[in-house]
């Protein structure tokens, strides 16, 4: 009993320490953002005269409104299409079990561990030849392709577990293949789809490499790519940089805190399946 209690307490202390270590950088960012612009504050010192105006200045300097709009457009371009394509493919590979499915599936799985840097050079020339450089399509189209291995893998894992009887009885009732897919299987796939949607949203919003290589204008990039440009421009003004970084973090943090249960589950399942 006593041993057990001791372990419980050491567990609690460790957990609190770990949480502190995780939160400390955010706290430091926040405190620094309140210092006078252009100053060189140190560590965690609370400023004598907090400059809340830094957030407004950073909002304007980073043109946050336009950034959020740009990232949202990119997410809207990537996520729904990826979900649709992956659901169709996952359904055919996992449930219809088409001939040659193993080869197709293996082709997709090959891309699971692909580092994006591996193909960024040819991708640049390809996107340039398509005339899409410096447009949001330069991020949207390659990302859909790059997400396919994981997304198809994920949806196949769902459809492989759907009982055949379900489809057989729907067929008895006269449903054609398209109805079977839309009316029966897509509604049942909603939990898998929503977790996948969360992961794809996060990976799109935070995509950096494609944004900085394929799009020069920070206002047409993802949030993450724009932050890179913001650092280049305001890197010497530490309080302003910290304020800007915090603002750029806010949308993902807000969405995370609202949907945290789903997020954590999605990320856990995501890494287990991947």
């Amino acid at each position: 009993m006593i041993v057990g209690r001791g372990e419980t307490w050491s567990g609690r202390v460790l957990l609190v320490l770990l949480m502190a270590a995780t939160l400390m950088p955010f706290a430091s960012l926040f405190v620094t953002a309140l210092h006078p612009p252009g100053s060189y504050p140190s560590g965690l010192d609370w400023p004598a005269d907090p400059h809340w105006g830094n957030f407004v200045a950073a909002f304007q300097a980073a043109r946050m409104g336009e950034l959020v709009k740009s990232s949202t457009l990119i997410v809207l371009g990537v996520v729904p299409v990826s979900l649709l394509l992956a659901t169709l493919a996952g359904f055919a590979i996992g449930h219809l079990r088409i001939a040659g499915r193993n080869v197709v599936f293996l082709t997709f799985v090959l891309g699971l561990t692909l580092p994006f840097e591996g193909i960024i050079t040819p991708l640049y020339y390809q996107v340039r030849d398509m005339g899409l450089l410096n447009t949001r399509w330069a991020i949207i189209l390659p990302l859909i392709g790059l997400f396919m291995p994981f997304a198809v893998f994920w949806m196949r894992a769902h459809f492989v577990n759907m009982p055949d009887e379900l489809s057989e009885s729907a067929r008895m009732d006269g449903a054609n293949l398209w109805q079977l897919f839309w009316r029966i299987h897509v509604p049942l796939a909603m939990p898998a789809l929503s977790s996948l949607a969360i992961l794809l949203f996060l990976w799109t919003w935070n995509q950096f490499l494609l944004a900085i290589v394929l799009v020069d204008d920070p206002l047409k990039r993802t949030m993450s790519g724009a932050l890179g440009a913001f650092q280049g421009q305001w890197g010497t003004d530490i309080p302003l940089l910290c304020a800007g970084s915090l603002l750029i973090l806010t949308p993902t943090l807000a969405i995370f805190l609202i949907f945290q249960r789903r997020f954590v589950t999605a990320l856990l399942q995501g890494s287990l399946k991947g």
Partner: protein
Amino acid sequence: MARRTPKTRGTVPARAAGLRTPSWVGWLFVAPALAVYAVFVLRPIVLTFQYSVYRWDGIGSSTWVGLGNYGKVFTDPDLFATILNAVKLIVFFSLIPVVLGLVIASTIRRIAASRLALAARTVLFLPQVIPLVAAGITWSWLLSSTGLVNQLLSHIGLGGVTRAWLGDFSTALPAVGVIGAWVLLGLCTILLLSGMSKIDPALYEAARMDGAGPIREFVSITVPSLRQEIGVCVTVTVIAALASFDIVYVATQGGPGNATMVPGLEIYYLAFSERQVGTASALAVVLMVLVIVVAIPIQWLTKDRTS
């Protein structure tokens, strides 16, 4: 459901016929995904291989150089150092989060259902949610000469070791590693913890009855039962180390000198600043192969053979 699979596996054509779906119709479902994947992933992979055997500045004509670019990747000390740096980063991105994650998870296993632990799940996931770029910016500030890390060190009487951690040749790479460890520790801890919740508590009780201490429990029950989760953690974190880009780009840009240059960043500089597309592509091929060569054995070793 699971019972049916083996039975149906042998009679696939018949079963597909049972669903009255000709195979070509099924292929229509796969076609769009395969098309986008082929155009934006498979084609660039093939092209990377093709570029890697030419010398090309990205504009003019290209010259066939055979495996010359690969020779350069392995003999040019600056290029080869990028691969070594990525391998060294594995210690921080992978070894520390997994080992520390295991220790932490087994310590907090007993309170895994408490309110504190539930709050911790949210907090520990924060580094996974924010852009890596933001983590890089935040930490470059924390690790700067006037940053929080030095302030804390001075407080505990270690003022002598303070420095600009990311600007010092001897500490820059470990400092980048610390950022990676911070990002990945929470994910590993929670992944391992959720794996532990599936272990039968009776195993621990039996071990206690046999007089096993916490360390013995950890080695004989916890670690073997978490084989799959450990495999996932190692795979994800090793790939994050080998293919690191975002953090290094914002925290050090590969500097000071080449102290923190990693393959991903070198590919970016070679291809888009120095216009050595061939060399960049050869390094890209090496990176892609390296990731696969490392990932496959880990998957194989940690596969759950009991099921």
